[in-house]
């Protein structure tokens, strides 16, 4: 069996609250990153605040979420985080969120690789049926990445964001187990042809 925590470029690592809190505090100085990440007002937070928050999330999340750090295979650098959350076990459904705090890794396939790896975890390890995400319309790099990972566009919450005096939409995307399986088969065929 494959190591399900390893992709091509990154691996999914465990969360050490202190280390991740320090990284969050570093990344959160970058408001472009923050405004791509979520719809909370951007603000700097201390390592202590971040650490308390991470510990609380890990403790309260229980079986309803699975979060990981994203680390490069080469050099083992901590570059972001990814998590499955709001798992609804009775429906086999959950949400996924990802953040790449280290800017030099943007647009180079690291995020897509992390997403593919966490989808495999969702479908093969947790046996879920569907994964959902939301993304802001002004984040084409992320949208392209999610499309590559196999997500389908499912609609938009109109004017749901407020940025620099302008209203922006939030897009919803989803991937079903069957769609993901089909992708795996295609990729296998592709691998066989190219080797």
């Amino acid at each position, binding site marked *: 069996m494959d190591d399900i925590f390893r992709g091509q470029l990154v691996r999914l690592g465990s969360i050490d609250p202190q280390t991740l809190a320090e990284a969050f505090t570093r990344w959160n100085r970058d408001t472009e990153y923050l405004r791509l990440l979520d*719809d*909370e*007002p951007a603000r700097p937070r201390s390592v202590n605040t971040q650490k308390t928050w991470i510990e609380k999330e890990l403790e309260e999340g229980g079986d309803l979420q699975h979060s990981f750090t994203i680390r490069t295979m080469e050099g083992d650098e901590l570059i972001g985080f990814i998590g499955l959350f709001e798992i*609804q076990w*009775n*429906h*086999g*459904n959950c949400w996924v969120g990802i953040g790449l705090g280290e800017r030099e890794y943007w647009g180079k396939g690291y995020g897509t690789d992390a997403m593919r790896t966490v989808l495999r975890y969702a479908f093969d390890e947790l046996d879920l*049926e*569907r994964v*959902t995400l939301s993304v802001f319309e002004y984040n084409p790099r992320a949208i392209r990445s999610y499309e590559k990972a196999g997500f*389908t566009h*499912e*609609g*938009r*919450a*109109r*004017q*749901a*964001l*407020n940025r620099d005096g302008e209203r922006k939409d939030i897009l*919803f995307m*989803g991937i*079903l187990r069957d769609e993901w399986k089909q992708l795996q088969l295609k990729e296998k065929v592709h691998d066989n042809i190219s080797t």
Partner: protein
Amino acid sequence: MNGNNGETDMNLQKQLFEGERIRLASLDLEKDAEIESKWTQDAGYLRLLDPSPARPRSPLLIKKSYEELEKRAEEKGDHFYFTIRLREEDSLIGFARLYGIHWPIPFALIQLGIGEEGCRGRGYGSEALELLLGYAFQELRLFSVGAHVPEYNPVALHLFEKAGFVQEARLRQSLFRQGRRWDMILFGLLEEEWRVNHG
């Protein structure tokens, strides 16, 4: 005493919580918990309402959830919960709420349920929704509201469409009920769309 001889643009006489036949009211922790506990014996009602697993709940459990609800509303201010009561009898028939309020946008989700079986299909839900939307847009100054409705709930789909909500997204096969998968429909209504019919 206002300076313009009683003339004012603001109609303070207009009651925000009074509909024609129903009113939006606060909770009566003891009595309402008894009644809502009876509603939770109705799995059909629960499954139309939300995705959490249907389960009967005791009055004690429900009372506790009311207490948490009220505490959270006071401390965090991220939701508003109303009971729906018949005006004449002053009897509890359901609930309506704004929840998940995100003030920087500002946006809220909306949900309502008529738990009292004999009171369904009479337009009480529409009346409550009308009041709640007025409250959301004219008292809370929300920019927009949303609602999540499973595709197997045609009554709710109709209710929100009639109130002017737009189907914005369809989360395919999000729900598992009765042995098969169903879509979740996401609705949205902007204040500027609502205002067209409620100047």
